[in-house]
C-alpha cells in the first residue's frame, strides 16, 4: 500500500517538477482580469467580448507573421523576456454588486495586475472603485458614461471615447449636415433607459442641444427591459421632433423600433448613442425598420484603407465567433492592446509600474484598428484622442458616413424632406 502511494506520488511529482523547471526558464505569465456579463440579459455581449480578448491575447502571445499594428509582432511581451499575457475571466451578470465581488476576487486570489471591463457603466463604477482601493489599474474598454472618469480616480484609464465625446460629435455632425443640405436640425427627442448609461448620455445631450440652439421636443426616461414601449412611442410621436436620439441597450432598441411602427410613427431621422443599436441582433431584429438609422460609433470596420490591421484581426475574430468585429469588440481588442503595450513599456508586471507606463501612453491611430487619432490619457484617465464617427444602416449593414476623412458614403439625410 505504502509502496503504491509513493509510486503514485513520484508519478505526480515528476511532471510538476518538469513544469516548474520550464516556468523558471521562461518568463512568468502576466495575469489580467477580464470582467464581463457572461450570463444574464447581456450574456451575448460577454461571449463576444470573451472571443475578442482571446483573439487579442493570441495576437500578442502567439508566433505568427507580424500584423500591421502595435503589439502585432507576437511572441509575448518583449521587454519581459517574452512573457505571455494570461487572461482570467469573471462574470458580473450585469450586476454592480456581483461585479464588485468578482473584481475583489480577481485581485486578491488570482493576483491580476490589471482589470479590463466591463460593458455596462453601472458595473464599471463598482469595479473601478475596487481597483482604486487595491491600487490596480482599471482599463475601461467600452464603458461610455462620462461621469466614470470624473470621480478623481488615479487608477482609472479609459481607452474609448465617452458619451460626452460621442454626443459632441453628434451635434457637430448636425451642424455639418445642416449646412451641406440646407435642412438643419431644429428639434430632437431624447429617449433613454433609466440606469447610469442612459441618464448620463441624456444629461450631456440636453446640455449640447441648449448650447446649439436645438429644441428638446421630448425628454423621455423609460424603464429598461419593459414588456411594452408603446406609450413611450406615442409620446415620441406626439412630440414629432426632427431627430430621435435614443440611448438604449439592444432589447429596448428592438422594441422601440417596433413600438414606434405600431403607433404609426416614423421619425425623420434617428441618431443613436450606439450601444444596442450597434448590435447585429438589432439589425436583424428590427429588420426593414432599421434601414436609415444613424448611430455614433467608435469603430469603423469599413476604414480598411487607413487601418490595414482591420482585415487580419477581423478575420481572426470571424474564425472564432462567425461574425465581424463591431463597435464593442473592436474597442475591447484595442483596450487589451493598449494595456499590453503599457506593461511591455513598463518592463514590469507591478501594478504601480504599469500605471506609470499607462499615463505615458502615446499610441498612434494607424497602429490600432480604430479610426481614432490615437490613444493618450489626460489627468482623469480619459483618452483624449478617441475621435468618434457616425454610421448609417444601409441595406442591413452599418457604413461610415461622417467625418469626411474616414467616410465611405454620404449620409442619407431625411430631415426637412
Amino acid at each position: 500500500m505504502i509502496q503504491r502511494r509513493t509510486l503514485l506520488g513520484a508519478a505526480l511529482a515528476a511532471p510538476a517538477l518538469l513544469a516548474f523547471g520550464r516556468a523558471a526558464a521562461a518568463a512568468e505569465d502576466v495575469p489580467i482580469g477580464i470582467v464581463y456579463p457572461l450570463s444574464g440579459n447581456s450574456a451575448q455581449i460577454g461571449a463576444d467580448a470573451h472571443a475578442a480578448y482571446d483573439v487579442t491575447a493570441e495576437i500578442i502571445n502567439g508566433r505568427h507573421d507580424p500584423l500591421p499594428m502595435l503589439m502585432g509582432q507576437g511572441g509575448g511581451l518583449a521587454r519581459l523576456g517574452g512573457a505571455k499575457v494570461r487572461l482570467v475571466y469573471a462574470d458580473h451578470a450585469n450586476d454592480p454588486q456581483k461585479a464588485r465581488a468578482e473584481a475583489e476576487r480577481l485581485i486578491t486570489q488570482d493576483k491580476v495586475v490589471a482589470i479590463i471591463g466591463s460593458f455596462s457603466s453601472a458595473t464599471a463604477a463598482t469595479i473601478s472603485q475596487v481597483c482604486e482601493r487595491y491600487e490596480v489599474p482599471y482599463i475601461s474598454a467600452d464603458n461610455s458614461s462620462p461621469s466614470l472618469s470624473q470621480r478623481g480616480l488615479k487608477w482609472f484609464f479609459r481607452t474609448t471615447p465617452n458619451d460626452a465625446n460621442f454626443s459632441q460629435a453628434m451635434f457637430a455632425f448636425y451642424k455639418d449636415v445642416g449646412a451641406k443640405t440646407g435642412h438643419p436640425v431644429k428639434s430632437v427627442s431624447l429617449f433613454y433607459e433609466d440606469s447610469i448609461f442612459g441618464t448620463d448620455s441624456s444629461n450631456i445631450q440636453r446640455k449640447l442641444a441648449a448650447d446649439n440652439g436645438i429644441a428638446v421636443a421630448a425628454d423621455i426616461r423609460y424603464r429598461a427591459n419593459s414588456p411594452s414601449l408603446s406609450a413611450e412611442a406615442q409620446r415620441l410621436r406626439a412630440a414629432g421632433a426632427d431627430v430621435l436620439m435614443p440611448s438604449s441597450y439592444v432589447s429596448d432598441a428592438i422594441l422601440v423600433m417596433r413600438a414606434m411602427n405600431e403607433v404609426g410613427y416614423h421619425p425623420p431621422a434617428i441618431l443613436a448613442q450606439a450601444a444596442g443599436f450597434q448590435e447585429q441582433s438589432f439589425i436583424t431584429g428590427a429588420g426593414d425598420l432599421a434601414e436609415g438609422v444613424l448611430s455614433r460609433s467608435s469603430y469603423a470596420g469599413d476604414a480598411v484603407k487607413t487601418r490595414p490591421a482591420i482585415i487580419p484581426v477581423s478575420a481572426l475574430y470571424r474564425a472564432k465567433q462567425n461574425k465581424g468585429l463591431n463597435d464593442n469588440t473592436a474597442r475591447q481588442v484595442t483596450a487589451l492592446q493598449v494595456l499590453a503595450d503599457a506593461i511591455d513599456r513598463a518592463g514590469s508586471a507591478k501594478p504601480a509600474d504599469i500605471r506609470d507606463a499607462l499615463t505615458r501612453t502615446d499610441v498612434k491611430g494607424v497602429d490600432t484598428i480604430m479610426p481614432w487619432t490615437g490613444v493618450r490619457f489626460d489627468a482623469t484617465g480619459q483618452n483624449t484622442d478617441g475621435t468618434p464617427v457616425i454610421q448609417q444602416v444601409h441595406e442591413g449593414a452599418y457604413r461610415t458616413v461622417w467625418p469626411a476623412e474616414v467616410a465611405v458614403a454620404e449620409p442619407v439625410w431625411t430631415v426637412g424632406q
Partner: protein
Amino acid sequence: MTALVLQAVVSGLLMGLIYALVAAGLSLIFGLMDVVNFAHGEMLMLSMFAVLALHGALHVDALLLLPVVALIMFGGGVAVYRLLIARALSVASNRGMVQIFVTFGLAIFLRGAAQFAFGGEFRSINDGWLSNRTVALGPVFLPLPQVAAGLVCLLAFAGLLALSRTEFGRALEATREDRDAVALIGIDRDRIFAFGWGIGAATVGVAGTMLSTFYYVSPSVGLNFAVIAYVTVALGGFGSMLGALAAGLLIGLVESLTALALEPSLKQVGMFAVYLLVLVSRPRGLFGKI
C-alpha cells in the same frame, strides 16, 4: 390629446390581454394545488424558442404553429409535474419550501439551458404574415400582430371557461375544493394535477406563440413578464380565470396610462399602486374566493 389617450387605452388593453393569458396558467396551477410556479416566465420563454425553432426549420407562420406549440407545452407541463412537482409534494416536511425551491431551481436551470442551447442573442421573427403591420382606424393605429394576439387570448379564455363546464372541469373544481375527499369518489388526484399542469403550460404556450410574433426572444425574456404575471394573479384572485382576465386588462391599462400621464420610467409604480390599493381593500383579489 383625445387621440393620444385613445391610442394609449387601445395599446394598454392589447398588452393587457397578453398579461392576462400569461397569468391564467399560473393562476390555474396555484388555484388547483397551492403551488406557485416560479418557472412560469421560463415556460413562456421556452414556448417562444419553440416557435422560433419550428419557424426556422419548417418555414411555417407562427400562427399556424399555435396548436403544435400548445401541445408541446402541454407535454412539458405534465412532465414537470410528474418528474418534479409530484416528488416535491411527497416530502414529509417543509413542503412549501421544497416546492418553492424546486420551481425556482427549475427556472434558473431552464434559463441557463436556453442560453447554452440557443445563445444569448436577441432574436425576432420578421417575416411572418402580420410582422410589423399596422392598420389605421381614424387617429388610432392597430398593430396587427397584437390584435391577433388579443383575439387568440380571448379565445383561449373562452376555451378555459368552456373547459370548466366539462366533466374534467368539474373534477378540477372538486379537487381544488377538497383534494382529500375527491379520492373517495374515485377521482385520480394525481391525474388531475398532471392535467392541470399540462393545461397551465399549454396556456402559457399560446401566450408565448402570440408574443413571439411581435416581441424579441432571448433566454431572459421570461423575467420581463413573470413579475407582472404574479401581480396579475394576486390582483385577480388566486385561482380565478375571470380574475386573471380582468386584472391583466387593468394592469395593461394602468401601465399604459401612467406612462402617458406621468414619467414612463414610473409606469410600474402605477401598476403596483393599484395592486396595493386592491390588496388593502380586498385582500383576496378582485375575484378571489379564498
